[in-house]
């Protein structure tokens, strides 16, 4: 399971303030912590970043990679910002990932950029017409994104399909459909399609003490179904990932398995 560290997000006050001031300190501290806690990639979420997005993403990518030997997940809807980030991304520790395209024509230019820089890409299974109702609709959209990616010359192996996790508190019936989608997505290709979720979205709006419980249990079910990656808090989900790995026989059990 690839954990993409979620903490460098403009939504977080401390991160936002550091970004506004181009203050490397907090950004690097959080990046290093996430790496040490087991993240295999660091998400850099700069929001829509309509003004100064290019400079911001470029700064984020270099700031993170100055201290952490990991690839970065470039998280914004601003194509120019993504391209600016990809230009400075150091591929020594793995290829970058773009978050994200979808089945909305406005988001197709991101595919061109991904192909140009040989980046991997998250395909969010939503279209222009609002949120998908169920797993079948998500799989339909996924197929269209895959076809589009092939048109742009992108191998589908470089695509991570994201079923879009919604809030438990407002759309309870969607959680099971997300789990079903992860299973269905894999069947769309051989080798199976890669899948990713923004995990903590499930617990948005829930009382804070309950959030980690919801996150971890959803991840257990998704991982069992074959989820490849999660944008999540590594410190929070490490135990879950390792325990499922042991249950699934991917790691040999020992009493100290959580410490390894």
């Amino acid at each position, binding site marked *: 399971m690839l954990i993409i560290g979620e903490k460098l997000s403009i939504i977080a006050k401390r991160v936002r303030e550091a970004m506004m001031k181009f203050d490397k300190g907090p950004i690097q501290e959080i990046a290093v912590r996430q790496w040490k806690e087991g993240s295999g990639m660091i998400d850099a979420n700069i929001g829509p970043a309509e003004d100064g997005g290019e400079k911001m993403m470029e700064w984020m990518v270099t700031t993170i990679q100055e201290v952490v030997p990991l690839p970065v997940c470039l998280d914004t809807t601003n194509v120019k910002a993504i391209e600016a980030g990809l230009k400075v991304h150091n591929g020594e520790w793995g290829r970058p990932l773009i978050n994200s395209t979808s089945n909305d024509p406005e988001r197709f230019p991101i595919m061109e950029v991904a192909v140009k820089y040989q980046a991997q890409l998250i395909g969010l299974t939503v279209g222009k017409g609002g949120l998908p109702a169920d797993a079948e609709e998500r799989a339909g959209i996924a197929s269209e994104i895959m076809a589009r990616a092939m048109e742009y010359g992108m191998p589908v192996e470089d695509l991570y399909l994201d079923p879009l996790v919604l809030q438990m508190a407002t759309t309870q019936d969607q959680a099971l459909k997300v789990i079903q989608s992860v299973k269905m997505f894999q069947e769309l290709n051989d080798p199976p399609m890669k899948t990713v979720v923004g995990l903590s979205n499930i617990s948005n709006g829930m009382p804070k003490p309950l959030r980690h419980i919801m996150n971890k249990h959803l991840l257990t079910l998704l991982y069992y179904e074959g989820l490849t990656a999660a944008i999540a808090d590594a410190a929070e989900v490490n135990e879950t990932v390792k325990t499922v790995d042991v249950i699934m026989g*991917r*790691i*040999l*059990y*020992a*009493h*100290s398995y959580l*410490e*390894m």
Partner: protein
Amino acid sequence: MAFTAPNETFGGKVFQIDAGIDKKIVFGGEDVLPFHLFEGNVPNRPVVAYEIQDVPPEDWPETIKKVYEVVSGDPVTWAKYCQDKLNAKAIALRLIGTHPDRQNRSPEDAAKTVKDVLAAISIPLIILGSNHVEKDAAILLAAAEAAKDKNCFLGKAQEENYKTIAAACMANNLKLIAMSQLDINLSKQLNILITQMGFEKENLVTDPMCSGLGYGLDYTYSVMERIRLAALTQNDATMQMPMLADVGMNAWKAKEAIATEAELPIGGVLEQRAIAWEAVTATALMIAGSEILIMRHPEAVKAVEKFIDELM
């Protein structure tokens, strides 16, 4: 179209380890299943060490005792005999006389024996306690000091005494044999605990506990095989240590290695039967993955070396 045999390659690799100063032994280092030379790298042969004791082998069966009759009264003479006459590549000195139920020799006695044997040979030494967990902690600590910087293996550290023995190894720059009781998960756990003390995993040898043919060999075989698969297929760094098979003491405990022709008429000539018992136990465990074997009978060792020659 000609048939092409499928090649299985893995992500993991067994650590390579050495022992000795002048004449080193090196084993491990392979990235494929035992003897699968056609699939990857097998840089080293399995190594056989001759077993000797600090006290005369009164409890050994007659067939093996008589081989060493003239030399086994003194460990130094015995060690030199194995090195010079049998061309041993390594010696495994078992300090069985330290066991409280045997001669209950002291740590000082043990240290002296280790020192004397080390002074007499130029091949690597494996130092083994009596498998009494409390006594071994004291004995192996003294033995480690006596073998400081001699690049010996010291063992066997078990769950109950690993802290003292691993610390003694680290302090004296030695390598360690860790033994668990025929359980792959406990074996992994012990490796983790030892490495958490700061012990280098590359300096460890795993003994998943040996059993002789007909007396649980299949359990040892299965655990060794699974350890090796975890090392190779799961690239599990806590399971990539080379493995030890303590063959002699187990094979020579078997009824088939002891019973006379009259007692076991279908078994054929006792001496041949007993040698075969040790050789077959050893070859089976090499196929399961062990790279270092401790053996007793020169003819059994010869058979094993021939087996390795043919497979490598």
